């Protein structure tokens, strides 16, 4: 029997769950305790087999009221792709105006997941008059 303790991160409850399994972890072979809801089981399975995270970062914006827009992967992506995804996103620059939900990268790091804007950045006003 294999054992692992982990923190389910699906919601802020952060349940400390005990996961036990025999052989390959699957729906049938794992037993989860300490979860407040059934999603913990699915989470445990995924954490054991294909852990995923949402990447949240920022990109440069030209001519915006702020210099950056915040962005995220539209869905969690595999942990091992996070750094590649981050580097790919870091090279992007957007032109204001930038809207929430706007796509920055269609398919980041070959994950099939898009990176989208999470904070709108309006265009800055025309040149201020002197003085």
């Amino acid at each position: 029997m294999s054992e692992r303790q982990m923190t389910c991160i699906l919601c802020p409850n952060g349940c400390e769950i005990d996961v036990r399994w025999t052989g390959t972890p699957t729906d049938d072979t794992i037993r989860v305790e300490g979860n407040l809801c059934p999603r913990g089981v699915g989470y445990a399975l995924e954490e054991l087999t294909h852990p995923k995270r949402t990447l949240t970062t920022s990109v440069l914006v030209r001519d915006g009221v702020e210099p950056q827009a915040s962005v995220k992967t539209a869905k969690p992506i595999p942990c091992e792709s996070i750094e590649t995804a981050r580097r790919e996103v870091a090279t992007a620059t957007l032109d204001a105006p930038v809207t929430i939900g706007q796509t920055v990268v269609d398919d980041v790091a070959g994950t099939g997941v898009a990176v989208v804007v999470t904070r709108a950045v309006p265009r800055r006003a025309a040149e201020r008059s002197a003085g």
Partner: protein
Amino acid sequence: MDETYDVAVIGAGVVGAAIARALSRYRGSFVVVEKGHDVGTAASGRNSGVIHAGINCLPDTLRARFCMEGRALLQEWCEELNVPYSICGKLVVARVPEEMAGLEKLVANGISNGVPDLRIVSPSEAAALQPGIECFAALHVPTSGIVSPYALTIAMAEDAAVNGVQFLLGAEVTGIQVHEDAFAVATSRGTIRARQLVNSAGIHAGRVARMLDPDAPEVYPCTGEYLILDRQVGERMKMSVYPAPRVANAGLGVHITPTTEGNILLGPSSEYTDDPETVCCTRDVTDRLIDDARVLWPDLPEHLVIGAYAGVRSKLAAPGVGGFSDFTFHTTPGVRRAVHLLGIESPGLTAAPGLARYVLDEFVLPQASYDPKPTEDLRLRRWPDRFDELPEAEKVRRVEADPDHGDIVCRCEGVTKREILHAVDNPLGVRTLSGIKFRSRASMGRCSGGYCLPRIVEILQEERGWSPDDFVLRGPASPAFAGYLLVERHV
């Protein structure tokens, strides 16, 4: 820097700034050489801000003389320059009968020095003057006061600057050579030539003096730590409160001093240090400041401490030697035209205008003839009224006249965008965050700049084109940031 100045002043603390202001009233070429990147960055910006009455000065000393001459002139200059000050008075508190002798000694000093209206008061009278203080008896000193030490130093220096005195900041003096007609002062920013020298370099004055005279006295740095309390408690302290001196000691204990902005200061402590550049606050001392202050003020709200700082005094008495040393004007036979001000510790701030007057009258003016400038040629650079302290109707008027007064940048101190811009556009060319802080008050409040620093960054990027690398705390060696986070890639 090809010209030869008439006078070079070394050190732009409160004394150097006062000398510069006094010089600026004369026709001549004057320069102040300062190692820091602003004026008043050492002891002058890190003290209690007290206008001493003269009770703590031994009679017939230079300290006493310049305390009394200085305090009168100081108040005149503060009025001219609009520098905040208040003659709020002081209570020196005896907690037990044994301390009465110490109070009586202060009274005797005071009477000799010409301090008026000194009175020993009962506990109930003391409580009426200053609620919340516990005592056996107290000495009421009505002529003692407070002044904003950094406002004073900056205001005098900027006033001197707009009247033609040059300020060379970020220039540490590394050597001085004597030539026939002038001194060659080597600095980290090149060499300055000047016919006369005034050394008001504070803790470095001994070292500078010894560049000309190996027999000049040593100056020993002595740290004093302070705690600052939130302005919220300022209403509770109407005047300074000091403990009575223990008869054997030369100085006073932990003081409770209100500031002109409504904060309360606890301190200073007193420890000699080997390394005055690394001015530090320590846990032991700041704990002791609270414990000692609580003896006088049992309800001291410790949870309202918002900051701590430390300054360094210039002492002529070596560690362990103790005793009294007077202000010293050191000159060297054979080296005319240079005077070194050594050991200017308390009441140095109070004395500064008096010291400046004396230095000019005794050392500078007799050496060469400088014509006073006619009044109409003089400009007056006044310390600006603080927007936050104006009456509401005046605030409304100013906002209507200048939209940038409607934009409050420092929420804790009520500093407006206009005040920030005025601070950064100063005549000394100081472009540091510390320079903005001391001129505008921004970041001196309870959140220590947590809210206003981001706003200041935005404003200076937007209005003055600064980039992250332009933001420094006190000078080029203290950058605030490490550049841009993201930089556009050009493929």
